[in-house]
């Protein structure tokens, strides 16, 4: 199984689906951010998978994965800062109470 590209890709897809569910269903803002991290990791896995099975892409795969990780870190930083700022304003971390843009 570890020799087939499909296994890695299916795994990545599963993890992505789990991340999507968490993003759409959880109430806490930080849970949403954690789900985002899961989705990013799934993407990373897919890239590494491609990199390890296609000879011309072996180094490129790793490089891209590292870049993705760096960007994910930056995004997590800013996202959490925003969540903290909102929390300070609304006194709640629950996203379904951030409905000031209602009609």
């Amino acid at each position: 199984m570890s020799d087939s590209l499909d296994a890695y890709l299916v795994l990545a897809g599963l993890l992505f689906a789990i991340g999507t569910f968490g993003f759409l269903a959880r109430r806490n803002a930080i849970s949403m951010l954690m789900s985002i991290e899961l989705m990013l990791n799934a993407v990373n896995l897919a890239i590494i998978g491609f990199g390890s099975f296609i000879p011309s892409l072996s180094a490129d795969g790793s490089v891209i994965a590292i870049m993705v990780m760096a960007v994910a870190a930056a995004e997590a930083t800013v996202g959490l800062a925003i969540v903290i700022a909102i929390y300070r304003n609304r006194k709640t971390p629950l996203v379904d109470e951030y409905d000031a843009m209602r009609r």
Partner: protein
Amino acid sequence: MPRSLLTIGATLALIGLAVGLPIGLVVLGVLRWGDDVLFFLFAEVMIGAGLLVVTMRDIIRCGLAMIVCFGALAGIYVIAGAPLVAAAQVLIYIGAISVLILFAIMLTQTKDAPTSLVFQTQSLGAGIAAIVLAVIIGLTVGSTDWPDVGARIHTATDHLAEVLFNEYVLPFEIVSVLLLAAVIGGVFLAKREEGGPP
């Protein structure tokens, strides 16, 4: 009392399944002893931890489950032949991002956190969407004939360094600037106002 028994019983059953399944598959001949079993184990842990991340009630436990997930993922990276990435995964994700998230959780905790609803009202739709998405990806992947696919390659670190600092030096530098900007932005956004409440 019976509830905790149930929980213990469920956990034991789950662990048993998690361990027994790969062994059974090895015996059946689907998995080869060595790489395949390890891959399967890591995959199990990763998916299990991921599910725990999105379904557990206590958010700190969710964060811890996420750490476990990242760890398993690093293991899979090693099996895939990208050891540097695995190391970076451990360092960055587990070492930095997860800690950051745990700090944020602690800063935004409310008193009624354990008792409020975990899931949104649209969680059913979300679940269906997620399942459909997984099926679509699975079908797509399964029905595609990937060209140029050979055996698994192990990426040597010095080859990686060569590529990284020769062809990809510009993105590398830009990413560092990006990180700087993100850090400054984050600090500014989360800063407490002058004279405001703590």
